[in-house]
Structures are given as structure tokens and as C-alpha cells.
């Protein structure tokens, strides 16, 4: 569920339809301005504020979704 939502946010902000949950953000043409929008949308749509350094470090949909799930489990 989380991965689907994150995938949709990435797709919108990267303006990209065809990519997998294991594709890397940088390889898909991502950069800091786009990541700032992704962060904003994750907060809005999933109710979790993920720090920018984690968004960059967990740089696939699969990794960041797992990270969000673990944050939600703790909170």
C-alpha cells in the first residue's frame, strides 16, 4: 500500500510512468528540487515527515516505503 502511494508520488514528480520500485532516484533523473516536492507530498498523503537525508539515502521506492512503514510502526 505504502509502496503504491510512494510510486505514484515519484511518478508524478519525476514525470515518469515506466519505472520499477527498485530503480534508483538519481538514475531516473531525480535531484534535490524534485525530492523536496516528493517529501512534501509524502507528508501530505502518508502523514509521515521523512528527513531529506533519509529520502536520498533510501533512494528507491522499495527502500523508502520500507523506511516509512518502520517509522509508522514505531509511532
Amino acid at each position, binding site marked *: 500500500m505504502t509502496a503504491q502511494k510512494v510510486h505514484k508520488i515519484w511518478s508524478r514528480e519525476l514525470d515518469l510512468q515506466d519505472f520499477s520500485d527498485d530503480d534508483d532516484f538519481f538514475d531516473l533523473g531525480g535531484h*534535490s528540487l524534485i525530492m523536496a516536492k516528493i517529501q512534501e507530498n509524502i507528508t501530505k498523503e502518508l502523514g509521515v515527515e521523512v528527513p531529506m537525508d533519509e529520502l536520498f539515502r533510501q533512494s528507491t521506492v522499495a527502500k523508502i516505503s520500507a523506511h516509512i512503514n518502520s517509522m509508522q510502526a514505531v509511532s
Partner: protein
Amino acid sequence: MTETEFNAVGADIAANAQIPDDISADIARFNQDGFIGPIKLYEEDEAAALIREIRIRNQDTSEALYKNSVNYDRHFDIPELSRHVTHPTIIKYLTAILGPDVLLWRTEWFPKFPGYKGTEWHQVRDYSYASGKPQLLPTESDWNAYIDITVWSTFTPATMETGCMQFVRGSQRQQIFDEHKVTESGRQEGYDVAYANTGFFGYNFSDFAIEPGWEPDPADVVQIPMNPGEAVIFTASCVHGSLPNITKRETRFAIAGRYVPTHVRVYPDQDSFTAHGATFDLSEYGSVLVAGENRYDHNRIRTANNCGEEFRRY
């Protein structure tokens, strides 16, 4: 490249460096043209791993020297940058050009995102364009072209499409721009470098042209496409700029180190300055001695970064 392999690269750049034996032809070319490159510093996968880590670490600015959005002098809080600026190949070229005693006085980031415009032609000697005051002041010689040298390293492809650098060959021998002219753009707070819609990071460098509307002779213009991990070394008094990024998805990411001989005073009589829409408090600032000895007492020297890691000196 695995994470372990990357850490080996990031931890000991000097050990992995490939240092050319004879650079005399390159130095002769530099003296003629005002720039030399591309010069290989890293393998492409090393460069990719380095910039990845730098971009991740960029998100944590808690130890950064300045509290603003302009990424000046991040070699003080990003260890990979602390090591990059003393890459032995860089130091070999610098000492051949500037002499044995060399300071690093600034690092700057030059990301060019997809769709970003080209950087207009500019020519810089003492950086007074930025604030109206000279940021460099030589104490031992009259002005010459080699008071300040820039090493511009790209960590992603810098191509005709992503925005490679371009130079006007030999233009360091002419004064085409006068950066002491009065201008308002860029010198005030409130510009956002990431969004400023000018040709020079919040400034209009054409404001400084001695001859309005100046354009170079196309025969003198040289574009320098570069691979990840390569550098171009130049005097900023050689007129230079960059092409636009016309790609949809490829960010060009370069980082520049700026170096002076130790006799140059850095930020003379300044506690802070305002440039590119931001204020820089110099209270924790210091130049870094990257080669030789410092026989002067006019510059504050930093020997370690904000993480306690000593800068390498040759």
C-alpha cells in the same frame, strides 16, 4: 561498486589517485590558453559514488559553516569534499602554476538541473563583483592572471547537452569585464540562487561588460565536454561560462575548488559578506593550506574540518 568499495574510495582518495608524471606540456598550454583539461581524477564509478554520498550528506547542514542555502565551503562539513580538494593530481597542477605554497580559499557547487539556462560569459579577478569589495588581495606582486586558480571537477557527464563549460581562449590577457562597476542584482539578500532567472546565479554579469554587448570571436571559443571524474583547471580571469542543460533528466553536477598562493589576503578586512542573495558570516572561516608552508599571518588558517578530520597537506 559495492558500499565497501566506495568507502575505500571515499576514505582515501590519495591512495587511489592516478597522478600523471609529466605535466609540463599541460602547464605550457594553460599559460597560453588560460585553462587546461579535461584532467582525470577518478574512475567514472568512483565519481558516481562520491557525488552520491555528497548529495546525501548535503541534506544535513548542521555542521555547515554558513547558515544559508548557497553551498559555499562545504569542505568543512562533508568529509568526501575535504579529501577531494586535496586530491594529489589537483595539487600537482596547482603547485606547478601557483608555486609551492597554496591555500584553498573556497569551494562552490555548480549543479545544472534539466532545463537550466547556460551561465553567461564572465571574467573574475578579485571577486568584487559579488559584494562590491575585493575578496582577494595580493600582497607580493601586482595583479597577474594566476593569483587565483579554479579547479572545476564534474562528477556527472558534462556534455554539450547537459551544460559543459566553455572558455574564450587567451582572454585572461584582456580586461573585458570590470567587476568593480556598480550593480544591484545579486548583491542584496532575497535572491534564491536555485530559482534566480538570471544568467549568473542572481547577477547579470553583462552589467560588468566594459563594452556593452560584447561577444567573443567564435574562433576563440572552446567547449570542454568532460566525463565524470574529470576536472578543468583555469584562471577565472579567462572569460568562461557554460552551455544550458537541454536534457529532460540529466543533472550536471560539478564542484569547484578555488586556490591562491599564500601571499594573497582572503576576504581582506571583512567579517562577513553578502553575495548571491545570502549572507556569509566569516567568524568560523579559514583558508586551508593544501601545499607547502604559510609564511604570512594575514589569513586565518583552518587545519581540520568541522568533523575534526585534518586536511591533507603536501
